[in-house]
């Protein structure tokens, strides 16, 4: 990395080298039987250079020829793309405990045993009424970023992730759970039993009947709303002139009981980070506080265009995945957390006269995302009547716009559950279906 940086310095005013190495084993069981196992070891280098107000980049998996990587970055620089930002300088290490050395002793048979145990617990409750799928993965991630401003940061992360799922008949419609940690953790039986019981309640297929249903949005389904909020609260959208939250800083945009922050420094979470993919220190960032919009989140580029300090949200991500090394850092809410409320899920359900528990959706990516609109199929939506789950709804859609919906949040659950982009509670919104 140092050699690459030194060579890049020779042709540019400033430069950054990003290194990423992952080792991961993924194991899948379908219908309680093994279906696939994949191991991967991937290494990648990305180079960014700056000269004046121009920027260039290149990447590769194995820099056998560092000069070629630098030459490609130089060609990219000559193309004339603007880069107004400066690479961040050295900052004090504020490291997190994200590596559990025990991960190196974890074996495939141990994970397979745990998956088989999970299947046994679920099947014990289901008694042949449902199909169990379980996926698990474990491994390590090492990141390092160095730049010509003197930055040299690195982080080692270990992870163990498991996700049990019960499929409804004739379908891949399912109820699922997720759990991740920096090391092996046995999945609690109590959560598996709750999952199986919710599944059994959801087995009858029902029609929704008249309109006027309350919606209880699960942590998994929350990403529909988050996706649209993120599009508006991103400093890049503000720069582009397409943010629905432009001029709304400090204004009420949601119910008083709703607060959402991005906090990359949560203890024990294998997704936790102490710097983003540009080396900027990660910190807690309120997005909505008691219903009030508190601020845009940024990467180096969008912050510099707005004349602001970067918030440390530059991550090499894209809507549909991709190789992080090949992606440029964009403002991303990667570690969201909704402030828990006071009611348990059981209490929220019990207080619902007619409603639907939205455990998953289809089509989150469709619809007018910049405008905040959504229109999704429930997958599944568990129908609630007089405080009890009665079955699951057939062919039902949930559509609207996040801004009026946020103002109608009436309950926020007291427990946070892991989902794609953070930790979320169940959230109830009145009379929306």
């Amino acid at each position, binding site marked *: 990395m140092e050699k690459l940086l030194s060579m890049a310095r020779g042709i540019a005013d400033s430069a950054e080298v990003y290194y990423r190495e992952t080792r991961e*084993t993924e194991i899948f*069981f*379908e*219908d309680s*039987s*093994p279906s696939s*196992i*994949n*191991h*991967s*070891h*991937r*290494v*990648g280098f990305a180079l960014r250079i700056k000269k004046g107000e121009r920027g*260039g980049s*290149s*990447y*590769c*998996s*194995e820099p056998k020829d560092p000069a070629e*990587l630098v030459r*490609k970055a130089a*060609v*990219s620089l000559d*193309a*004339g793309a*603007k880069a107004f930002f400066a690479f961040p300088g050295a900052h004090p290490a504020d490291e997190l405990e994200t590596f559990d050395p025990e991960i190196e002793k974890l*074996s*495939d*048979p141990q994970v*397979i045993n745990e998956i088989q145990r999970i299947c046994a617990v679920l099947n014990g409750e289901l008694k042949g009424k449902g*199909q169990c*799928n379980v996926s698990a993965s474990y491994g390590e991630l090492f990141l390092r970023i160095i730049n010509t401003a003197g930055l040299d940061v690195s982080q080692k992360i270990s992870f163990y992730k498991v996700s049990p799922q019960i*499929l*409804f008949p004739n*379908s*891949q419609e399912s109820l699922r759970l997720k759990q991740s940690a920096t090391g092996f953790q046995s999945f609690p039986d109590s959560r598996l039993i709750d999952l199986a019981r919710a599944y059994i309640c959801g087995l009858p297929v029902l029609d929704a009947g008249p309109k006027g249903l309350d919606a209880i949005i699960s942590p998994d389904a929350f990403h529909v709303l988050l996706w649209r909020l993120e599009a508006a609260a991103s400093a890049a959208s503000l720069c*582009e*002139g397409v943010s629905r939250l432009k001029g709304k800083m400090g204004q009420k945009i949601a119910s008083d009981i709703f607060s959402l922050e991005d906090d990359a420094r949560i203890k024990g979470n294998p997704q936790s980070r102490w710097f983003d993919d540009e080396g900027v220190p990660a910190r807690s960032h309120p997005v909505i506080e008691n219903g009030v919009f508190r601020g845009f989140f940024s990467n180096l580029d969008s912050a510099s265009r707005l004349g602001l300090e970067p918030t440390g949200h530059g991550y090499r991500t894209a809507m*549909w995945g991709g190789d992080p090394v*090949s992606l440029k850092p964009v403002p991303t809410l990667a570690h969201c957390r909704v402030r828990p409320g006071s009611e348990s899920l059981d209490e929220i359900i019990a207080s619902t006269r007619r409603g639907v528990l939205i455990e998953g959706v*289809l*089509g*989150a*990516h*469709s*619809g*007018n*995302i*910049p*405008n905040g*609109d959504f*229109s*999704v*199929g429930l*997958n599944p939506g568990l129908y609630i009547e007089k405080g009890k789950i009665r079955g699951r709804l057939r*062919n039902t*859609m949930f*559509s609207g*716009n996040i801004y009026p919906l946020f103002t109608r949040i009436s309950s926020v659950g007291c427990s946070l559950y892991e989902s794609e982009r953070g930790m979320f509670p169940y959230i109830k919104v009145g009379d929306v279906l």
Partner: protein
Amino acid sequence: MKRLLGNYLGRVGGDYSDMRFERMERTRIEYRGHELLEAGSSVNQGFVLRILENGGFASACFTGVSDLDNAIKRAKECAQSMGSGGKMNAGLLVPPPVEDEIELCLKGDPRAVSLEEKKATLSSYNRIVMASKDMITASAVYEEVTRERYFINSAGTYVAEPLSTVSISIRMIAAGNGVLQNGRAVVGGSNGFERLLGREDVFLRKAEIVSRLLDARPVEAGTYNVVLNPEMTGVFIHEAFGHFSEADLIEHNPSLREKMTIDRRLGCELLTVCDDPTMPAQIGHYSYDDEGVAGRRVVLMQKGILRGRLHSMQTARSYGENLTGHAVAEDFRYAPIVRMGCIYVTPGDNEPSELLDGAGEGLYVLDSKGGQTSGENFTFGAQYGYLIRNGKPGEMVRDINLMGNLFETLFAVKGVGRDTAISEMGGCGKAQMNIRSAMGGPHILIKAVRAGGC
């Protein structure tokens, strides 16, 4: 390359093993509004090793040849763990050995076109969009991917086949009446740079539509007779039916597998559906899949009867059916899974105007905004649509998402157009992203489809 990969594979052992090496060159140029955001190309590479041993089937993906021994060790460990502890009992239908080296057949090799010319082409289309009425920004992306693929297996097969895809995609956003509206236009394919030239009309037409969407009202939620344009037909058949033709998706789902029994009637007589990755020029074109199996046209549904499905070597063995050559990986980072190559509804007898007539007071929906499936349920979104009045497209409407049930909707197809088109934009997010999954067909009429507005 053959000798090198052969040497590597010779160290693996097992009941069966194969190895794929890929060198992937990617060029990406992006304008955001009028500003050039990014331009450049990079090269990545990696290996995928697979081993079948005592019923355990495992893969190891790695980026450096120095990691070969460790990858072999891990793949063997994984196969053993699944075979013994996990009681996996995988088998493979391995085809007779073949040796083949395919050359790209391109009208304008994009690798021979300068970055400046690519930039100028993209910029010219971007300027058209940005100059359009109500347009406040656009994200214009030129993307070119060339994958040099080399495959070898322990049964004696060696295949080298490069794949090339090029596309220009412009996502455009217009503002007015207090709302933002967006749309996307794409040109692209697998037969060279020239297909990107002279396509101004595609971007101009979509920019005009996005501007008109500002005055359109959201479609009222309800049940409609809908006419799908060819792009929507492609997404519909991909989501509603195609995924269940992928044998791995239902292999371990007994209830769905039973429903997808060959020779069972699943749709109306008007509906015939095929998948053909070998169709030239379309974005998903290939001759061999990522298991070195020759791709071929498969009739999936014939006049409403299920006639075939798409296979990898593993699923073909599991089902006792013939190989089809549909095991595809996103790139060197992944082992292949079963994917559609180019799925399409075959043309029928109706003029599109007859389908509009047949819809009554229905909905004409155009141009995809993506879709998703989960078992028998599916959704797919449209970029825009028209209310049908007196057999003609009338008022423009927006925010159209359609939802249905596979086993009901395929019977609700009431007309199939004689026109046909294959989408220039590929895309499928099943486990890995596949930018080369193509789809298409003619206009079709479906009765009583649930539409959600906003």
